[in-house]
């Protein structure tokens, strides 16, 4: 159906299928993909192997044994699997996305491709979706490996609710990767040089990982009055600190994952005595409750992805095609 968008005729999605298929084939057959896969396996295998070793001693005493593979902090390797992912997923996404658009400029293929019947919309969205699919495939593979290893080494099947929670975790991980993929693609639209765009995306990633927590602390400290006189004041400060932290996609990811994989998590904000009332410490929440709890985090991640993608879209529309 012809659709009009700002006076243009024809669907903005014309041609998105071929773009998606080509990009996906490129990703899946690329050496880079192989490197990235090795990368996450190495990063994931260590924590998982050591948590499995530790978990074998606690079989039977834990209702959510399977989920602990993802979350416990093994003695030998002091990073849980999810934290390793928190760190590695952005790297993967940046690795896939930093040259999505500017490589077309540099290969001088952009004007030739855009002289075929498709809008820039389709090119950008097709590339993004192909990157996201690749990311999802890699993460799903990793997820299956962890699950398989768990089955083999723990020797007992996970319960349905554990599988459901672990699947939820996979979805959150893909959304988190999507944010960073959008960021990487944004830089690939803004900068013609692939090195510059890679560096910028990595710089932003380092900023959020290393500097942002410190900055958030400093800002909060600036708001601390000489004397804290009321509980409200205290909570206000806590909330400010948390709100600042949540501007980092990594925080949203950890919070969502925490609530999904630790069913005992009852709140993701500062906890008040009123919220504790009637709650038996250690009693797990039903899955529905946990999902409600992480809803803001998940929508935050998806909204972030959409905002960054839209920014790239706006810039790309105005860009001159000639190299």
């Amino acid at each position, binding site marked *: 159906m012809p659709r009009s968008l700002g*006076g*243009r*005729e*024809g669907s903005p999605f*014309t*041609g998105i*299928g*071929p*773009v998606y*298929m*080509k990009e996906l084939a*490129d990703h899946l057959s690329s050496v880079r993909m192989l490197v990235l896969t090795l990368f996450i396996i190495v990063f994931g295998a260590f924590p998982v192997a050591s948590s499995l070793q530790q978990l074998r001693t606690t079989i039977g005493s834990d209702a959510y044994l399977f989920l602990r593979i993802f979350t416990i902090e093994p003695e030998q390797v002091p990073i849980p699997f999810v934290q390793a992912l928190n760190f590695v997923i952005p790297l993967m996404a940046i690795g896939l996305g930093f040259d999505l658009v500017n490589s077309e400029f540099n*290969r*001088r*293929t952009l*004007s*030739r*491709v*855009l*002289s*075929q*019947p*498709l*809008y820039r919309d389709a090119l950008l969205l097709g590339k993004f979706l192909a990157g996201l699919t690749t990311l999802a495939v890699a993460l799903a593979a990793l997820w299956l490996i962890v699950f398989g290893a768990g089955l083999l080494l723990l020797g007992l099947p996970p319960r349905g609710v554990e599988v459901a929670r672990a699947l939820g975790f996979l979805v959150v991980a893909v959304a988190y990767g999507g944010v960073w993929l959008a960021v990487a693609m944004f830089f690939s639209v803004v900068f013609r040089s692939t090195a510059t765009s890679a560096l910028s995306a990595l710089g932003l990633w380092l900023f959020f990982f290393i500097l942002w927590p410190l900055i958030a602390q400093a800002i909060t400290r600036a708001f601390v009055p000489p004397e804290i006189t009321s509980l409200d004041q205290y909570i206000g400060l806590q909330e400010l600190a948390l709100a600042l932290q949540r501007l980092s996609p990594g925080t949203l990811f950890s919070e969502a994952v925490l609530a999904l994989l630790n069913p005992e998590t009852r709140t993701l904000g500062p906890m008040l005595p009123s919220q504790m009332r009637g709650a038996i410490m250690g009693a797990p929440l039903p899955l529905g409750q946990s999902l409600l709890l992480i809803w803001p985090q998940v929508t935050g991640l998806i909204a972030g992805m959409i905002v960054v993608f839209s920014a790239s879209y706006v810039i790309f529309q105005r860009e*001159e*095609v*000639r*190299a």
Partner: protein
Amino acid sequence: MSDNVIDARGLLKLYGGARVVDAIDLSIRRGEIFGLLGPNGAGKTTTILMMLGLTEISGGSVNVLGFNPVRQPLEVKRRVGYLPDAVGFYDNLSARENLIYTARLLDIPRRETEARIMEALRSVDLADVADKRVATYSRGMRQRLGIAEIVMKKAEVAILDEPTSGLDPHATFELLEMIRRLKRGGVAVLLSSHLLDRVQSVCDRVALFNQGKIALMGTVVELANKVLGAGHPLLIEATGQDVAGTLGSIAGVRQVVPAGEGAWRVTADHDVRAEVAQRIVSAGGALTKLSDLQPSLEEVYTRYFQEARHAA
């Protein structure tokens, strides 16, 4: 609609305040080869990009095959083949794979794809290397692959931006031959270039671009008459006594200029070849060469811009 495949009226492009394309009127007729000629930065590429809807139009209008590239870019791009200057392909893919991607974008039915690609590659002599990665292709081969893409597309109009730049004389000759073949297939061709003598031979009509304006437009002969003045230039090589004097005394000869050892250039009001031959022989000389010089676009161009500079 008329016989025109492309119609531009008052087409305007501003970059900042600069009028890069300055309200030009231009028509390309069905089945002709039209040359857009001009120095670097004259606005040729910008004009082409506006025709394809690949850059915004600041004013005026352009109509391509009855469609408006601003509002109906997909319709235009389905029917027009474009070879950008310094065309690029995906180096990691073969020529065939590159064309398959284009075919998918064009939504060519799958069972036709293979045949159309091979036919197109055969028409530009790339069938033998169809499965080699494009990374191994020379510049001339890439340029030919670009033509193959247009052939496969079955475009009604082909727009070629500097198709011969960076090619050696032989590759240029081959490429021009392919452009002629496009024309024989009924495709209207718009090509841009600053290499005048090479494109002169293929163009039915040309437009001379200068600083965003069309300075002159017409057939090469028309332009020559306008800029160089009417006349028949001849090149004569002969031996004998006072050849120049003999030539100068022929009725209708306006100018005799020495052009090297035993050679002269003659400009006359009409065709004086028969008389020249007769007079030289009867004066006891020997005529070794007598040729009708085509007016050269190069000359037109140089003269025109010299005069334009003088006028400024």
